[in-house]
């Protein structure tokens, strides 16, 4: 899979994918979840900048909304990408910790 270009939305995109890995959510629920789990407060412009890119890459998908709030879900493509990203991060963390203790 080619690495997508999220630009300044790289970190928010990962936070959104991780949030949606826990279940379908609309924008405000994602902001609250990310604040609670990662301690990061995403602004509305940043959130939707990342959401729009993730949707274009088909990493997330909008679900039909009953009101003006539209929920999103993680696609299988998004789950694969998130898993690959987190695995590479895990490898990087392990090497860094080894270097610190050496």
């Amino acid at each position: 899979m080619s690495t997508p270009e999220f630009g300044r939305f790289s970190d928010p995109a990962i936070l959104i994918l991780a949030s949606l890995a826990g279940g379908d959510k609309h924008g405000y629920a994602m902001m609250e979840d990310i604040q609670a789990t990662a301690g990061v407060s995403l602004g509305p412009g940043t959130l939707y900048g990342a959401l729009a890119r993730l949707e274009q890459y088909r990493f997330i998908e909008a679900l039909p909304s009953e009101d003006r709030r539209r929920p999103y879900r993680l696609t299988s493509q998004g789950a694969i990408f998130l898993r690959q990203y987190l695995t590479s991060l895990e490898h990087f963390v392990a090497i860094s910790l080894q270097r610190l203790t050496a």
Partner: protein
Amino acid sequence: MSLRSWLTHLYPRAWRERYADEFDELLAQCLHSPLDVIDVFWGALDAHLQLLNGEEVNWRMMNKMNKLRTTLLIVFAAFIGFVIAGFSLVGLADDSPMIPLMQTDLPLHLSWILIHAGAVVALLAILIGGFPLGLTVLRQAFTLERGNRGWLLVPVIAFLVLLAYFAFVLLVGSGRIVLPGVVRVVQPGVFPAGNRLLLAGLMLVFVLGAVASTWAVWKAVSATEGEQQTFHPAGRPLALNIYHFAFVPALIASAAMLVIFVSTLVWGWLSFTAFPQVFAGNFGPWLTSTQAWYFGILALMLLCTLAAFYAIGRGRQAAQAE
């Protein structure tokens, strides 16, 4: 113009067509400080830069695909509403004096035939239009990591529960199971409370099963990924946009619903003109008011027809998009 609306209008038109409603709703909840306003400025600037950079921006197309999918789901839900109304209509006409009357009265007979013809056309349209979509849902349910297999169990369970209840009613009717207050053979004009309860349960299981199954199908289709699918009929690859493919059958199904509704209206009017005492009497299921059932059925059909045509109107633009 409110601050929220003004901020949303900073974004490109194509972006707004896709995200404006939900973004405005989000701003209503989280626009607390000047930093949030600055954040929206940056977001809007980024969206314009994406367009200038010639990035693959397909907000419009994504929006249209979502609209088209929702259109098809609403038409499907309206069709299920018609199935419930149709069974109720058959229950109303069965064993009533309208059946022998229909054999001699040609206009009444024709309107009844038209109701059945509309039902067949609607069913075929739903089956044909929904076939590739159904195949995709099934395929993804068993191949994708996050496939929603659970939703597909709901219609199966609902059908099994209905079968089990129907078998129970048959066993009661045959006398193998004896229930207090339920008689095996109902005398004309007398319908004991126990029998009413038993049949009300059957109708409740049917309606609840239909509603739950529709809801589950809605969830399963919503979770389906990608509108372009490739099928292999007779070993040859066939690429299809499953939502575009289903639009014309959905239009035909909606037209058939309109035909059924108008035919039911005509049928009711002709029946009333020829046999007013039937409408004044209690020929509904469980000897209930004929009028109440008839107008209830009409109201449900009208509601479903309006919903289907509203959805078709909403999805027409999406279906015409390249």
